[in-house]
């Protein structure tokens, strides 16, 4: 009776317009209603619906004929002995019945490979000590011990070693992202020391700056660190460039690195803050959920993206686990949303491996983050170390031990190797360079790349040797710039972030290098008391005598020629109403934009002994006449921060309202300028600077640009421009762990006719010709050595000569450079 009734409701129900979505519509029903008894290892009544084949085998459904399918009969039945789920369980809802019916009528679509069976492979959590196989033929590197045994097991031949030159090129590109210089290459090849490769590895890894400038690419991709990007426009994003660079420069132990990312300082908080665009955001992309997703993916190789909307259909992670992890970060109660629909339940801060302990959900957010950092870096969390050593292996060897590297639930091709490297990292104080060194020192790394013929993923992967890697956009451009000395100038924003926090990356780098530079010294030497002492000897000046009450609006240029005595640190204190841009001997030092805060400018670099010119562009920013003033004083500090002298009034200020070309330069003739007026001392009204001055009211403006000098700017530290984008540098809106491995046609078009590339080739050819105008043989030889780490063959030499022309022309050199830099051999790291 009841059966008929329900069936009739089904028939009358309006057809569901959209096609059935197996993963989203059907799986949840089967999982919740059926799989507990008929899925996984359970098969009550001999019926399992683990796979489509099993379902068909059981003869309970007829595709496209729902009304003839036994399964539908059972779920709609009200007969207590017959019905499914059994009588002690809840019935399916009407909607669920409709979906099942539609699913059957649609032909029972099933996701390829989907199963309710338990995952065959569950990656271990704990670290595992590995018993190393016996050393064969003196090959004692632990990696080789494992892989030698692996090769025996799989019946594979030994690797073919690469020669010294190929090794050096591969090593330096991999570890520091640069080509070996030809003379270094020759010296290395000629060296007959037995352990010269090991020495080279040590020397290369010891180049801290090169290392940091290279690996910042890898980490910025993973941590979504960009100098400009989406979200900055509304303060929805923050750079971590300075922190990240510093961490790489000092080879910060990885556990500490992770700790500072999860429980951050203001310098490293950009990672967990995520990216927020203006306006409302889908709940699965709220910053809290991004936190869970990024922490999962980057640090653990766990994909929580599915489980951000619903329990994952592809692995074991659930919606609640994602939300609970997100709640560790959330500073407010976090309601669980399923597919963007609020559930009424609230997440409870928890992390995903309670075996290791748990965060206190009652604790405040900063404490919860600290606890999460403790758990993440817990010595028993083998997943953290496995994930990172696998990433490093992939960078060095072209393919992960687990691959893809973000899917750490995948079975490794050698659990021994993965577990060994992971524990080894932990035992060496989480020293990532040590892991890189271990890999680089192995025969496995120093082997000829294997040809990749078949990428079919269906067959089990067998390791046969390193795979060829394509250079990243950054490696490619650095290699060209380096081998042709065509480094370009820093970009305009590199030294000063804009109002949104974009740019300023080179200043951040310099700041991170501060311990080695003068800048930090100056910061440490300066104190509020010392500045007050200088201010007490300073005066306000402007163009007209009543400027402290009314001054004309607009710009006033000031100049003063003064004697500056020698001192280890020469500094300038300045304040302005409304603003002042300060030049010393024609060099722009910086600007000051407030009358109640002082700015300290560094002048040491640009002082000449004896007479110096200070020039200031002052501005009274207003439509109406109102007060205007400039306060500026030069002072000298000793090495240990003692005030050596404060500049006496050796010169006199002159001024002009007009802007003359070169007005700030020493050779400018300012004889027609008028004398400026000293208004009063630093305590005078309306500014009352001395009365209000305290330690919070000064800032040191470093002259980052001159500190940078002519140091090359690596591609990784340049903005994400069109060329780099074309060559595969991501915009860092998403976490990226691998770059595109192939050159596309659109990229090839840019390389063949793009203006960036052709002007680069022009510039490069000029440099090459400036070095060598007369000897084409030598030119060809050094180009091949620099670019490919080998001399040209006879035929290559002839082809190159043909391009160069007789005599060599600028066009010819450009074309040869282009042809060599476009070779797959150049692009690929073998």
């Amino acid at each position, binding site marked *: 009776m009841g059966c008929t009734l329900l069936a009739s409701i089904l028939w009358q129900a309006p057809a569901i317009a959209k096609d059935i979505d197996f993963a989203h519509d059907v799986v949840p029903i089967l999982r919740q209603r059926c799989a507990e008894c008929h899925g996984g290892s359970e098969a009550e009544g001999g019926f399992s619906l683990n796979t489509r084949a099993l379902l068909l085998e059981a003869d309970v459904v007829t595709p496209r004929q729902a009304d003839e399918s036994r399964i539908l009969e059972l779920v709609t039945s009200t007969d207590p002995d017959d019905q499914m789920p059994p009588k002690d369980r809840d019935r399916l809802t009407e909607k669920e019945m409709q979906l099942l019916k539609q699913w059957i009528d649609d032909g*029972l679509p099933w996701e390829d490979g989907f199963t309710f069976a338990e995952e065959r492979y569950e990656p271990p959590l704990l670290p595992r000590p590995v018993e190393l196989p016996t050393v064969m033929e003196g090959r004692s590197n632990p990696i080789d011990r494992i892989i030698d045994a692996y090769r025996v097991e799989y019946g594979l031949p030994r690797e073919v070693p690469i020669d010294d030159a190929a090794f050096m090129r591969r090593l330096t590109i991999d570890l520091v992202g640069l080509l070996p210089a030809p003379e270094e290459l020759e010296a290395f090849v000629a060296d007959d020391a037995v352990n010269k490769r090991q020495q080279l590895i040590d020397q290369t890894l010891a180049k801290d700056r090169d290392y940091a400038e290279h690996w910042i690419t890898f980490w910025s991709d993973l941590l979504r660190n960009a100098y400009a*990007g989406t979200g900055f426009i509304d303060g929805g994003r923050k750079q971590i460039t300075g922190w990240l660079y510093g961490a790489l420069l000092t080879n910060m132990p990885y556990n500490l690195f992770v700790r500072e990312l999860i429980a951050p300082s203001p310098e490293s908080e950009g990672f967990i803050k995520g990216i927020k665009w203006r306006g409302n955001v889908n709940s699965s992309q709220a910053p809290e959920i991004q936190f869970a997703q990024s922490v999962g993916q980057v640090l653990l190789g766990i994909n929580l993206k599915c489980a951000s909307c619903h329990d994952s259909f592809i692995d074991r992670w659930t919606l609640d686990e994602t939300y609970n992890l997100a709640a560790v970060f959330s500073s407010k109660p976090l309601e669980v949303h399923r597919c963007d629909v609020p559930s009424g339940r609230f997440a409870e801060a928890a992390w995903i491996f309670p075996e290791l302990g748990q965060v206190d959900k009652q604790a405040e957010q900063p404490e919860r983050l600290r606890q999460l950092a403790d758990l993440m870096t817990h010595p028993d969390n083998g997943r953290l170390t496995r994930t990172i050593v696998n990433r490093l292996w992939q960078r060095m060897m072209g393919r992960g031990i687990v691959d893809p590297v973000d*899917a750490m639930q995948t079975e490794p091709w050698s659990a021994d190797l993965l577990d060994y490297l992971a524990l080894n990292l932990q035992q060496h104080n989480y020293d990532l360079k040590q892991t890189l060194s271990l890999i680089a020192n192995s025969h496995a790394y120093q082997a000829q790349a294997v040809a990749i013929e078949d990428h079919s993923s269906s067959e089990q992967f067998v390791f046969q040797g390193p795979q060829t890697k394509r250079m990243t956009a950054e490696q490619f451009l650095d290699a060209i710039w380096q081998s042709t000395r065509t480094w370009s100038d820093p970009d305009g924003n590199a030294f000063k972030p804009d109002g949104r926090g974009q740019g300023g990356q080179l200043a951040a780098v310099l700041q991170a290098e501060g311990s080695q530079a003068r800048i930090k010294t100056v910061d440490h030497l300066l104190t509020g008391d010392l500045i007050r002492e200088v201010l007490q000897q300073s005066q306000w000046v402007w163009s007209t005598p009543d400027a402290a009450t009314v001054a004309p609006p607009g710009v006033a240029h000031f100049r003063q020629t003064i004697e500056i005595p020698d001192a280890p640190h020469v500094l300038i204190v300045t304040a302005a109403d409304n603003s002042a841009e300060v030049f010393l001997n024609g060099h722009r030092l910086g600007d000051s934009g407030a009358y109640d805060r002082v700015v300290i400018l560094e002048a040491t670099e640009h002082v000449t002994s004896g007479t110096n010119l200070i020039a200031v562009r002052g501005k009274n920013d207003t439509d109406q006449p109102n007060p205007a003033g400039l306060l500026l004083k030069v002072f000298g500090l000793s090495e240990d921060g003692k005030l050596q002298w404060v500049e006496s009034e050796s010169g006199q200020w002159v001024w002009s309202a007009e802007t003359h070309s070169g007005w700030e330069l020493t050779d400018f003739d300012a004889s027609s300028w008028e004398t400026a007026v000293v208004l009063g001392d630093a305590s005078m009204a309306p500014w009352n600077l001395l009365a209000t001055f305290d330690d919070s009211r000064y800032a040191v403006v470093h002259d980052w640009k001159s500190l940078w000098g002519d140091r090359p700017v690596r591609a990784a530290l340049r903005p994400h421009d069109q060329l780099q984008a074309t060559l595969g540098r991501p915009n860092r809106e998403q976490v990226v762990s*691998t770059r595109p491995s192939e050159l*596309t046609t659109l990229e090839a078009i840019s390389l063949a*006719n793009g203006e960036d590339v052709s002007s680069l080739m022009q510039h490069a050819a000029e440099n090459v010709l400036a070095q060598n105008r007369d000897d084409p043989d030598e030119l060809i030889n050094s180009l091949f050595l620099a670019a490919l780490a080998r001399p040209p063959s006879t035929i290559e030499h002839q082809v190159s000569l043909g*391009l160069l022309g007789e005599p060599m022309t600028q066009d010819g050199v450009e074309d040869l450079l282009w042809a060599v830099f476009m070779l797959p051999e150049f692009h*690929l790291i073998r």
Partner: protein
Amino acid sequence: MQLPNDMSELETRRHFLKTLAASATAAMMSSEPRLLRANDAQAPAAKADSCILLWMGGGMAAPDTFDPKQYRPFEVGTPVEEIISTFPAIDTVVDNIKITEGLESIASVMDRATLVRSHVQADLGNILHSRHQYHWHTGYVPPQTVAAPHIGAWMARVLGPINPVIPPFINIGQRIEGNGEAQELQAFTTAGFLGNEYGPFNIPDPSQAARAVRPPQGMEMGRFQNRFQAYQKLVKESPQGQYASDFQQESMIRSMENAHRLLESKHKDAFDLSLEPKESFEKYDTGRFGQGCLLARRLVESGARFIEVTTEYVPFLHWDTHENGHTTAARMKQEIDRPIAQLILDLEQRGLLDRTLVVLASEFSRDMIIEGVPGSTANDQSRAKTETLQEMRHYGLHRHFTGGTSVLMFGGGMQRGLLYGATAPERPCVAITNPVTITDLHATIFTAMGISPKTAFEVERRPFYVTKDGTGQPVLDLFA
């Protein structure tokens, strides 16, 4: 995800030309997205081969363009709530369709058009143009955990190029440098997870398009070819060649060959506007947008798959009227009216209109009073706030409105002279009949192009659909 036995494999009518695709092996790589399914037995037969999107960047006000309402001329002292349209309505060649003054040329080809007046956008709260543009161009609201592809990239990926030497996705008219939302614009002008191969071929300035497909400036074709021949010899000699099976190397060489095939091909003339007869050029030449329309026509004639031509989005410029809206809209209409009508006539005259789907759209509409939709929490972003009109600057639709927007479609199997959907005659002018979401509009466009709205690729072991979660439903009434 694979279709079970009795459901068909991907059935696109057109053969996917592999010439421009980097390599067949690439598709087999585990990191490469995998096509999951595409089927639609009941879908209307696709007629369109090519698609031209005419993008009115910045929010084109429907009441001042294709959806005229009560008109009030400028008069000092008029309360702003009395103003809905700032242009009078004009007749079109279709009896029941009126549009606004300034669009007379388009009015004369309205019998070839399907006009949808009930397109609606999501309320995303406080409005950022580029975020709505991202939504419109990809079907997904940012941020996303997977980089969403532009609809042009989907077409390039699923259908491939028509002519193997013309890039399948061409993007005309948007300059990036110096744009305050450059990063946001770039975030959706991309093939996303589909990979660079399917990304846009960017032509920021249509008058310079020829340069994009010529050898570098200052390089004669002879030298260009000579350089490439020498390169090919060096490739052959390189010891790298020992690994001839290496797919990376092969695809690199093939891509370089493809690039040179385009740059040396006669088809590149399609990019060169100077080859267009003067008379014809002048018909289009209202500026960059008009030239973009002409370039689009030339490229479609040569076998381009998807072309976007934009009036260009620059914050506070063009259609982005936060003040002085009437005057700006009048100027914008002058810029778009003639070239769009001419594009339609030219396509028709060449017999291409039936197989070319032309879509004019914008990220949202505008209103004098309402920001977002009624009841939205969006911040008011008008720069000419006033109770009553005092000066010309006050006159125009200065708020972003997402409740009802006009979309104009021509050709490609759409109906002719059809008016679909309506917005309320009085404020708030929200869509009151047949609302069409971005998802369904995309489903319509994709269906017209022969792509199922449920087409998906697997990325990171999850399906990613061409319309949001595969839910797009084509608006069948629009199809002829």
